[in-house]
Structure formats: C-alpha cells, structure tokens
C-alpha cells in the first residue's frame, strides 16, 4: 500500500535511503542537511551515527560500501570541503555496495559562511550529481542514486539547496526493498589508491563519465517538456519550479542528472528553440559547458550568481515585466541573537568587559561578533579559531596576542578544533583557547557528539572528556569554569592570557534550549532601586527592555532566570531567586 504524506525535503531523502535498502548512514550536522540524519534514525533497519566531522562520516560510508552494503553520508556544502579528501579518491576506487554523498547547498546564506556550489566540487572530483526539484524527487533521486552508483561503479552526489531541503511537499511512500549485500573480494587495484593503481583507475573514471554522459541522454530524469518554442530553458533543481511559475508556456529541458551533462540531448533541445536560457542558482556550471559546445545561450548575463532565485526575478529578467509590487516598509532589522539565558552571552559579556579580541569559530556563538557583544573579530570555518590565533602569534609574537583568545564550541572543537590545538602545543605557541562547552551542537538544533555521552541512535556511551584530552596533549593550564560565574571567569581569563605557553579555559553550562536544562530560577525586578544606568542591558538579552520611565523591565515569558543581568547590577535592582 502506498501512502501520501507531506514531507520535508530532508525527510524525503531519509525515506529514499530507507526504501533503497541503505544499511549505514553517517553525518555531521549542518544546516540545511541536519534533518536527513534526524529522520534516518527513525528507521531501525539503518545503522546511523553523528561522526565528529564530514571527512570521518564519508570514510565511514566508504568503508560500509566497500564491505558490500548501501551507505550514505550527508552534509552541508562546506562539509563537502572537509569530506573532499576521501571524495576525490573514492571517485577513482568506485564502490561495491552503493555509495551516496548528500550535499546541501545554501544559496542566500540562511545559515552558512559562504555560498559555494557543490556541483563544482563534484565536477572536480568526477562524481556524478543528481539534483531534485521537490520532496518527491528528493526521495526518488536518492533511490536512483544508489542504483546508478552500483551500475556505474561510482560514488554519487545528491545535491540539494536550502529551498529543497527545507520545503515540504506531498510524497508517495513506498516499502523498503532489502538489497542483498554484495560479496566482498580483495581487489587492491581498485581499493588501494597508490600511484600504480590510481593511474589505471583515472583512465576508468574518465571512461565512466563519458559512458554516463552518453547514457544520460535517455535517462528519464533528464526530461524534455516541449511547449512553445520561442523560449527554451535548460534548468534543474528548485529553479525548475520558478521557471514553471514565470514561464508556463516555455519549452523546458529539466535536468535531473546535472553532472555529467547529456550533450546530445542538450544540442537537440537547443536546435528546436528560438532563444535558449540556462537558469541555475549560484555558479554557471551547466551554462559554461553548454556554451563551450558552441551553443548560443543566455544565463548569467541577465541572472545573478548570488542568492536564491524566484519567479518574479525571472519575470523581470526574461519577460521584462513591470510588476506592480509595493515597496517594503522601512522597518528596523531583526537579526538573529543569542537566546535569553544563553551561556555564551555570559562568557562574551566578560570578554567584552576586558576588551579582549577573539578569533572565532562556527556556531551560535558566531553571534558574539555583533553588537552589543562585539568580541569576535574573525570567523572562517570549523576549527579555524585556534589555528588562526596560532598564526597571529607566530606572525606578531606573544605580546601582540595578550588581548586575544580563540573561542570555539564543544562540538566544533571535536570536529576539527582538536587538530589545531595539537598544533599549538607541538609548535610551542602562546595563547589562550576558550572552549565554550554547552554539551551539544547548538545551532543546528541539538545534536550529540563524542563529548556528550550519547549517540544519534540514543545509546548512552562514555563521554570523551575535553578536559582530559587537553591535559593529554601536555597543556598544563586547563581550567574549567561555570559560564555564569562571571567573577571567577574574569579572574581566570586575566590570569591565562598573561601566561606564557598554551592554556585552555573550558566554560561550562548547558545550552538553555536543551530539554534537559531545567529552569530553576526566576528574575525579580526592584524598580525602586533601578538607577537607569543600563549596565544590565549591555549584554543584549532580549528579555530585558527599558520601561517608559527608563527603568529596566523583564519579559517573564522569555526570561529563564539565568541571572546574568542580576550579577551585573551594582544596585540590587535585579534579583535572581529560586523558583
């Protein structure tokens, strides 16, 4: 019996993996890919895990595939960079059981540090790419990816974007088909990628792509929709939907397989239409190849490489329609902020007071870069805080970085921060690393990691101690401090930044949004004692505002009694009391 359900794009990918008989899935959380694993865990037939980073996750999936089962790794676009080392080479080796890497790009940068296009990575790695246009296709293409992977002996990429990953649509659910494990036999020429073997595999990889490009002309996922021939559009992914809205009469070549491209099919389609457009978000990956074959087409001359597209954008750029759209009202921006009761705010308030600069990292705490906290000066990628601080020290010397620290979260430290810390110790650096341990991967919505004591599948396991890892590296000064104990924290920070050598401060307090974090206190406001100095407001807690008379007032629905403001008030106007 098939059942219809409204399904998130990421949930559809998980469902596709389930129906395809996948047995192993590994991932590191990252918007917009996280919900894939959070849905896969609902299927007991699949072993799934949070790995410490995307490289590890991909290698886990590779091992499973080599052993003969269908396996998947999923990640956001920048995670693909971390995973690119194994990806480029397993492309040579190919598979045994089907192997799929899901890459979720983020045009428009809803929750990312760049806007890169994973199709470029896939092309460089010579990995074929399927790109769905809605939830139903997200499920279908995931299943197809495993079939193609085994048929062509290649890892496959399923590429989505935020608008596919985080949109819901109706999906027809089908049962899981168990796939028999492929037998394993030792084959070093295929799976031991040393020069002699890899030379041969490189020849194979080129042949494989060529063969697939030819076959792709008759793949049903590469679909020609002939309508009026004045305008023809080559498109894929979410832009297909904008094309259908804005240009309902246009002929469309909808590509499901976006690498390698079906050249003959494209040439044939191009010959049948008067004006050909290539409509793709981000980089002109399809467009440049089409043009390189001498086909006349219009693309990035009139469309941007930045952000998301929309139907209105196409109406303006292609049809030159003057749309009767009102100007948006001029209103104050509402950027994201740290939550009320967030332990990061407490730590940043101390750094701000001490005038310390931070080399920052990736997480909710990147918000420590903006007003009113203004502590973080640099953010590059996962784990970079520690290594960039080290680079500064090596460039400018110990005294230069006395008012600098590296700030990194627990999950990010476990991801790639740990390597950088080893490097500081090994290369005799000076500097203080602050690991803000909130016992979870916060920004992506609370995923466990190796230092939390729980797995994706819910198993209680021994938590790896960040403190003891730092000590094991030979770092003498590793101090654990309660993130809300601002007096002690201030004292410790002053001591550590003035010390020679590497030191680590671990600030501890669980994320306030974790279900296990209980509200134990509440805030009382004694307006008569308020001197309207605004010291309490400085850390920028959204639960505190000024009343009309200038005294502070608290929004009790938002406040959870963390007490940071009370600790900052010199006049006793704010009081943290037990509930």
């Amino acid at each position, binding site marked *: 019996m098939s059942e219809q359900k409204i399904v998130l794009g990421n949930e559809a990918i998980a469902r596709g993996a389930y129906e395809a008989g996948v047995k192993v899935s590994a991932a590191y959380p990252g918007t917009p890919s996280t919900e894939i694993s959070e849905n896969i865990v609902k299927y007991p037939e699949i072993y799934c895990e949070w790995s410490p980073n995307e490289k590890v996750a991909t290698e886990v999936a590779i091992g499973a595939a080599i052993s003969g089962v269908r396996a998947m790794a999923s990640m956001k676009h920048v995670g693909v960079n971390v995973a690119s080392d194994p990806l480029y080479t397993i492309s040579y080796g190919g598979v045994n059981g089907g192997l799929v890497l899901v890459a979720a790009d983020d045009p428009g940068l809803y929750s990312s540090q760049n806007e890169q296009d994973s199709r470029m990575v896939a092309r460089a790695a010579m990995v074929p790419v399927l790109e769905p246009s809605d939830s139903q296709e997200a499920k279908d293409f995931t299943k197809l990816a495993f079939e193609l992977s085994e048929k062509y002996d290649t890892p496959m990429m399923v590429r989505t974007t935020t608008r596919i990953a*985080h949109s*819901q649509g*109706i999906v027809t659910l089908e049962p899981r088909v168990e796939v028999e494990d492929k037998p394993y036999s030792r084959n070093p020429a295929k799976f031991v990628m040393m020069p002699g073997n890899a030379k041969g595999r490189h020849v194979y990889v080129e042949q494989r792509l060529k063969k697939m490009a030819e076959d792709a002309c008759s793949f049903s996922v590469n679909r020609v929709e002939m309508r009026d021939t004045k305008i023809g559009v080559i498109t894929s992914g979410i832009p297909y939907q904008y094309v259908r809205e804005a240009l309902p009469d246009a002929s469309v070549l909808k590509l499901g397989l976006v690498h390698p491209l079906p050249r003959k099919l494209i040439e044939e389609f191009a010959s049948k239409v008067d004006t050909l457009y290539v409509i793709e978000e981000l980089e002109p990956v399809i467009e440049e190849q089409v043009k390189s074959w001498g086909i006349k087409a219009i693309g990035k001359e009139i469309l941007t490489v930045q952000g998301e597209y929309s139907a209105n954008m196409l109406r303006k750029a292609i049809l030159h329609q003057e749309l009767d759209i*009102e100007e948006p*009202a001029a*209103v104050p921006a509402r950027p*994201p902020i740290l939550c009320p009761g967030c332990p990061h705010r407490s730590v940043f308030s101390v750094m701000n007071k001490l005038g310390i600069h931070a080399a920052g990292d990736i997480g909710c705490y990147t918000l420590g870069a903006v007003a*009113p906290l203004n502590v973080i000066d640099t953010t590059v990628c996962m784990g970079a805080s520690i290594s960039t601080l080290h680079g500064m020290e090596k460039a400018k010397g110990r005294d230069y970085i006395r008012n600098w620290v590296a700030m990194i979260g627990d999950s990010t430290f476990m991801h790639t921060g740990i390597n950088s810390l080893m490097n500081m110790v090994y290369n005799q650096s000076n500097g203080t690393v602050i690991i803000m341990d909130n016992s979870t991967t916060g920004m992506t*919505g609370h995923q466990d990691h190796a230092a939390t004591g729980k797995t994706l599948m819910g198993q209680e396991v021994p938590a790896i101690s960040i403190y003891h890892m730092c000590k094991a590296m030979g770092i003498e000064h590793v101090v654990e401090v309660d993130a809300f104990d601002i007096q002690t924290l201030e004292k410790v920070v002053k001591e550590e930044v003035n010390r020679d050598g590497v030191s680590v401060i671990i600030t501890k307090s669980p994320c306030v949004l974790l279900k296990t974090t209980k509200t134990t206190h509440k805030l009382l406001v004694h307006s008569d004692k308020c001197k309207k100095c605004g010291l309490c407001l400085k850390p920028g807690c*959204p639960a505190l505002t000024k009343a009309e008379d200038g005294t502070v007032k608290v929004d009790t629905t938002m406040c959870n009694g963390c007490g940071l403001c009370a600790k900052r008030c010199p006049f006793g106007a704010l009081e943290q009391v037990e509930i």
Partner: protein
Amino acid sequence: MAVQTTQETKNIMIVGVGGQGTLLTSRILGGITLDAGYDVKLSEVHGMAQRGGSVVTYVRYGKEVAEPIVEEGQADVLIAFERLEALRYAHFLKKNGVLIVNDQRIDPITVVTGAAQYPADILDTLRQKYRVISADASAEALKLGNSRVFNTIIIGMAAAHMDFDKEAWLKVIEKTVPPKTVAINLAAFEVGYNLK
C-alpha cells in the same frame, strides 16, 4: 501588471520571531489542505535565523503547486505573530489580501541597543492599506488558562477568512495537537474564529 501565479493557487504566509512557535500553524495548514485533496507545498527557515531572528513560513495549495515560496504581491492571507513582522512583510499581500496580526511587540536587538526605534502605530499604518484583523492572542489565551495556545487562537482568526469548513479545521486540529491538549486547543480555535 498584476503578478500571475500558478492557476487557482492560494498563498498563505506565516511570519514571526524565531522561537515563537509558528510550526504548529504550518502543520495545521498543511494538514487541512492535504485532507481537502489539494496539492500543497510549504517552505520554512531553519538554522541561525531561528535564534530570535525574523522567520517566514510559506504555504501554497491548489490543483498543482510549482514553487514552494510566496512572492511579493501574492499572499492571500498573511498571518503575523508580531506587529513589526506584520509591517515588514505586508507588501507580500495581494491587493485584497487579509492581514491577521497578533497584537504583540517583541523588540529586535536593534531596538534594544538603541540603534533603531520600534515604529509607533503599526496597526493604524497597516489599516490604511490592508484589511487587518488583529487581537492580542496571548491575552486571549491567558483567559483560557494556558498562554501557550495563543497560536491556535491565531489559526482561528485566519480560518475565519479562508475557504475551508469550520468542521475541517476542528478535525485537523484534533489530530495534530497532543491528545491531552485537544480540548483547550479546540476552545482556543473557537475564540480566534469568533474574533472579528
């Protein structure tokens, strides 16, 4: 020219502040449209913007829906969980669209730090241009004894201006909310539905 969308498609937008819990509203809207046999697509924001930022959910339903987002000038109903967010997205409404506003103020950080002013008289400004239905849903929810059902009150306010039977709404609420909270959610829906 007026913006043409996929034929017979209805476009709903839900806007608010990250953390306000607009998710239940989109689940109920998705449920009622699916039950009625429509094609439906929803699109929402996850990740960093959920941390107190401005958040948007799009719901589109009809015979066949292509794009999952609602664009400027296309919304039949705009449901705003907060006043400033109503003003921010009002230009997404069609000329004859309905604006449902929860009369609540949440200061953005730009206002808290004094970098910007929270606009005065937002509802009056909006009423000059749009059909506005507003109420303090949180206060109404408190009267029912549970401040958390304010979003079901907002759903009721919107439902009165959409083309589904009241019975269908009650049915989908009953199967969407946790079993223990069915009675109070149905009562909350009634309150919203009857607000004029």
